[in-house]
């Protein structure tokens, strides 16, 4: 692995995160190389990059997951480093190892660290070793099916069967009582085996309605490791985060320090490098439990950027260059409050079903405190092939109240037509009583909106649509053209206007 200044980075990703990384490259004067699948040939990340190479057909495993092809492009174009973004190859230790072998800097932790922390059971052991509180459970995998009943009794119900190699809910089961315990374990083992080729499962106590709070960590290759405060990520749908904020409404300086130090301990224990996130569950009494480590940049990293003022992607690049962190623990002084709303191409009224098509019009809100990281522009296509995230809107305010007010306002300004979006959904969450008071947990969306009756940001749309329809229909039938936009060059009324005021103006000039 060559150290020193990175001159050219290949970004092995697409959409908003590819664009986020391109921006960091350009800020740093680094050449940004995009890769794209055939269907993405005119995508916005291709247009913003300095160079772009086709990496294969639309299907991710033939393009964005095609490790050898990506390495080959990196070699051919002379890239010093690869940034994997999130998703795709970001937590693939094999790919990180392939980069290392090919003397290309992988912007992320070392491949061993990724492999170690990617195994949930191993990560749990590391956490215990680092002195972190973990959810009560087993620190070994269940090998003897005859013993499950007594192990389960020790932990207590309800409990969670989890796959060691897990992710995305596969190989996971909630067990409420001894009834069906054996059956659940057996089926979880089968599912994990088929999904990950690794059937190891273990037990954890199931916490009801916990908060999901995570700590951003950063470590360099000189032994420095710091935490950059927390992100509260309990607003979820389909078990995926949709709205995040920092600070967490329940956070105290003491708790932040405790959780932060715990996260730093795990970084040190695992010889962590670069940006990472330690996820915790927090119960109603502010007890926190280690959940897992995400060995990459998170989707919601801008929330931390807004309150700390630190550009996490540029810092990743610095660390990858072998530099020391540009800040110390005491330099990190969070200011104000930030909220992120993820904007998905989904229909919230149809159980968040993905929505495909052309984004006819895309117009972002702006004004004080608003930042939008988007992967789409007007005319972009949302296909079925990839994650339906279109953009993230991040809003900063002096305090939580101002940040909520601005978020609500900005959502009503946001305009995406042609595909469904979660803008109205985000607005109804921000307006809901529990969110406003900061009283919510991971079950909030399902609990508050059992009928998915998300109100849209503004009321009365059906009546307005009826009015628009009746006028449009009338004009169409009467063959009345809707007045075209004035065009100053063609139908110039200017000359006439100036004619009228000419004498008057000239009096003054003379």
């Amino acid at each position, binding site marked *: 692995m060559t150290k020193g200044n990175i001159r050219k980075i290949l970004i092995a990703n697409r959409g908003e995160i590819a664009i986020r990384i391109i921006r960091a490259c350009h800020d740093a004067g680094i050449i940004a190389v995009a890769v794209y699948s055939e269907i993405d040939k005119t995508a916005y990340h291709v247009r913003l990059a300095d160079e772009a190479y086709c990496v294969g057909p639309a299907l991710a495993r033939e393009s964005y997951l095609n490790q050898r092809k990506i390495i080959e492009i990196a070699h051919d174009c002379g890239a010093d480093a690869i940034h994997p973004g999130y998703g795709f190859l970001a937590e693939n230790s094999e790919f990180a190892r392939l980069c290392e072998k090919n003397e290309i800097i992988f912007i992320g932790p070392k491949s061993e660290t990724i492999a170690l922390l990617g195994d949930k059971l191993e990560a749990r052991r590391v956490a215990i070793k680092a002195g972190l509180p973990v959810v009560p459970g087993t620190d070994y995998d269940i090998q003897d099916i005859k013993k499950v009943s007594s192990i389960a009794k020790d932990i207590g119900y309800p409990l969670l069967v989890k796959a060691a190699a897990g992710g995305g809910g596969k190989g996971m089961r909630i067990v409420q009582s001894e009834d069906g315990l054996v059956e659940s374990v057996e089926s979880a083992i089968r599912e994990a085996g088929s999904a990950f080729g690794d059937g190891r499962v273990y037990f954890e106590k199931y916490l009801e309605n916990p908060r999901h709070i995570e700590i951003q960590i950063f470590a360099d290759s000189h032994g420095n490791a710091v935490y950059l405060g927390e992100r509260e990520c309990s607003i979820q749908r389909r078990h995926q985060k949709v709205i995040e904020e920092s600070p967490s409404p329940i956070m105290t300086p003491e708790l932040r320090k405790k959780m932060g130090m715990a996260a730093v301990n795990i970084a040190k224990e695992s010889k962590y490098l670069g940006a990472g996130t330690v996820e915790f569950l927090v119960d109603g009494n502010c007890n926190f439990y280690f959940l897992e480590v995400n060995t990459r940049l998170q989707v919601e990293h801008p929330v931390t950027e807004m309150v700390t003022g630190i550009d996490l992607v540029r810092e990743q690049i610095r660390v990858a260059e072998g530099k020391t962190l540009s800040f110390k623990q005491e330099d990190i002084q969070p200011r104000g409050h930030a909220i992120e709303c993820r904007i998905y191409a989904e229909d919230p009224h149809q159980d968040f079903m*993905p929505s495909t098509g052309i984004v006819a019009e895309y117009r972002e809100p702006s004004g004080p405190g608003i930042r939008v990281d988007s992967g789409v522009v007007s005319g972009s296509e949302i296909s079925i092939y990839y994650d339906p995230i279109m953009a993230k809107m991040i809003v900063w305010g002096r305090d939580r109240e101002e940040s909520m007010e601005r978020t609500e306002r900005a959502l009503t300004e946001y*305009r995406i037509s042609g595909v469904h979006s979660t803008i109205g959904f985000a607005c109804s969450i921000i307006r809901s009583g529990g969110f406003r008071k900061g009283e919510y947990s991971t079950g909030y969306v399902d609990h508050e909106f059992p009928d998915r009756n998300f109100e849209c940001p503004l009321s009365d749309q059906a009546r*307005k649509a009826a009015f628009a329809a009746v006028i449009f229909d009338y004009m169409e039938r009467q063959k009345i053209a809707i007045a075209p*936009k004035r065009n100053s060059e063609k139908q110039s009324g200017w000359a006439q206007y100036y004619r009228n005021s000419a004498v008057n103006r000239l009096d003054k000039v003379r």
Partner: protein
Amino acid sequence: MTQFENRYVVTVDDEEFDISLRKAGDGLQIDYKGKTYNVAVDKLGDKKVLLKIDAGSSEVDIFRNGRGLNVFLEGKEMVAKVEPYNLAELRKSAGSALKDVEDKVVKAPMPGLVLVVNVKRGDIVKKGMTLVIIEAMKMENMIKAAHDGKVKEVFVISGKAVDKNEKLLELE
């Protein structure tokens, strides 16, 4: 009723609006639920207008799509149908057969891969029951019954790739 006063029934998704429209000076006026509104539309671009209702204004994407109009405003996509009041009354008294037919065909809301088909011909289904699961964008999407009924015909099998609006099944 003068030449310029027209009464319509506008159906927006499931809701009906009884609206009268007339010319008033250079502009247009709408009567709705006993109130009068000054209205206007100005073109903003292709398929896009600025709708003004009294002092308020909304950007509206609007274009004809078959018998209806596609309308998008304030984050919501809707389908509107405009019928002269008399015609609508006639249709209603003749029974609302049309609408039902549309409701009975269950279509794919997006292109994707049929993972699971939960019903077969002749099955009795209840509102809210999952009929078909389609995978798209790496997520499973449940296609549920909009109302109680009996399965008349199933057009897809597990493993079939479907396009948007492809017929999945028909209820009786």
